[in-house]
């Protein structure tokens, strides 16, 4: 019975809905701000703290997560009526783990430096609750195209937050962005690097400040 109940569409569907209708656009835009996986749902904090030291690995991580979340959403959504309900979590995990391993292998073959920097954290995408959360909450009950959009939404929502954190950490921790020494370039030779930003505590504080600003603006309160 369980798969049938999941079949119920969340919103009533019309026959000839455009590929980017207003309802569908919300799948992408909502996670960027009002329903952000990191700042509102407070998921995926572990990797957000660990890999946001510099911009370059953070960007690679964002792309990896985006790839995994979009494709696992797609695969689970396509097979949602075939997946036995009692083993669905295992199946979701298997799909995520396979995609993550694939990303890891490709990184190792084509981007070895980054593979060494990200090392274990690429593997830890498997345990990133954002992805499991989207599969269970969305892809199991929605059509493929909607799931892809939802994947992009959550992926970008995750990406822009960790990129924002990495921006401040690399800027103040190393005085550079993507390895380019910003402060030297604008003529400040002796910019003191902030040691706090280099530690995960710095990431905690920046995420905290982002959450603070965002919730002050939106008035969101956790109940």
């Amino acid at each position, binding site marked *: *019975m*369980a*798969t*049938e109940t999941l079949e119920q569409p969340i919103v009533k569907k019309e026959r000839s809905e455009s590929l980017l209708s207003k309802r569908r656009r919300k799948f992408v835009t909502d996670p960027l701000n009002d329903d952000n996986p990191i700042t509102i749902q407070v998921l995926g904090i572990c990797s957000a703290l*660990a890999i946001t*030291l510099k911009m370059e690995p953070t960007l690679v991580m964002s792309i990896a997560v985006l790839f995994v979340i979009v494709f696992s959403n797609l695969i689970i959504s396509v097979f949602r009526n*075939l*997946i*036995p*309900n*009692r*083993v669905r979590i*295992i*199946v979701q995990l*298997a*799909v995520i783990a*396979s995609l993550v*391993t*694939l990303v890891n*292998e*490709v990184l*190792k*073959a*084509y981007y*070895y430096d980054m593979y*060494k920097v990200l090392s*274990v954290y690429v593997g830890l995408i498997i345990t990133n609750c954002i992805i499991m959360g989207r599969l269970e909450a969305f892809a199991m009950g929605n059509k493929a195209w909607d799931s892809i959009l939802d994947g992009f939404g959550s992926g970008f929502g995750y990406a822009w937050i960790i990129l924002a954190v990495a921006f401040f950490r690399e800027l103040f921790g190393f005085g550079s962005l993507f390895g380019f020494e910003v402060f030297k370039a604008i003529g400040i030779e002796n910019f003191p690097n902030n040691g706090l930003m*280099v*530690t*995960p505590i710095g990431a905690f504080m920046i995420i905290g400040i982002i959450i603070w600003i965002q919730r002050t603006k939106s008035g969101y309160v956790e109940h």
Partner: protein
Amino acid sequence: MQQSNAYIIIFSIITTIVLGGLLSVASVGLGPRQKVQVELDTKKSILGAVMEVQKTDDVLGIYDQKIESLVVDIQGNQVETDESGAPVVAENISIEKNYKLPPEERLYPVFLFKGDNGEVDAYILPIYGNGLWDVIWGFVALDKDLKTIKGAVFDHRGETPGLGARIAEDAVQSRFVGKEVYDPNGTLVSVSMLKGEGNAPESLDVHTVDGLAGATITARGVNNMLQNYLEHYQSYLQKIAS
């Protein structure tokens, strides 16, 4: 609809086979390229012990031009063929596998860094040991006087980021440059990291370098692998010095 057990089992089996097959194909397909990358990385760190390697450099080209390699055993005798008679190539020796053997049975690669006139400028020796969480390794380059450290690179598998992982940073590795591994009497003393960081420069002599704050055990691991491998290479170094 509650699926039958048979359906669940068959579904699981098919999923496993499909996903497993997919990953095997990816792994086999990407294998050769990964091997090249690993080789490139090793050669980069060998060269990194004696020179600055830029991202854009033709690492393999410089390596072929500058590095000559040989393999020795613990007595310092050159090993050219293995038991079956096949030639031993220093680049193909896994330090990790050899580390598991007793020191007397290991093979020790030596990488000779040649200057422009073809003379040996530095001896680059691989080192290997245990850090806090997992193995650490590196290359130490001895100057042609065979006692001054010309450069060192260290790497690690799982040391704590920001603490022990700092052994992979240039700033830490450059502390070893110019230090001496033998005392004036010719006894091996190696170079060790002190406990704690920010030790007064007066307290450092030619055999000690500043330590790592919060990473005493990793630093001790570095000390041990340096000491151990310099001992293992001692007979070879004495042989070429005489």
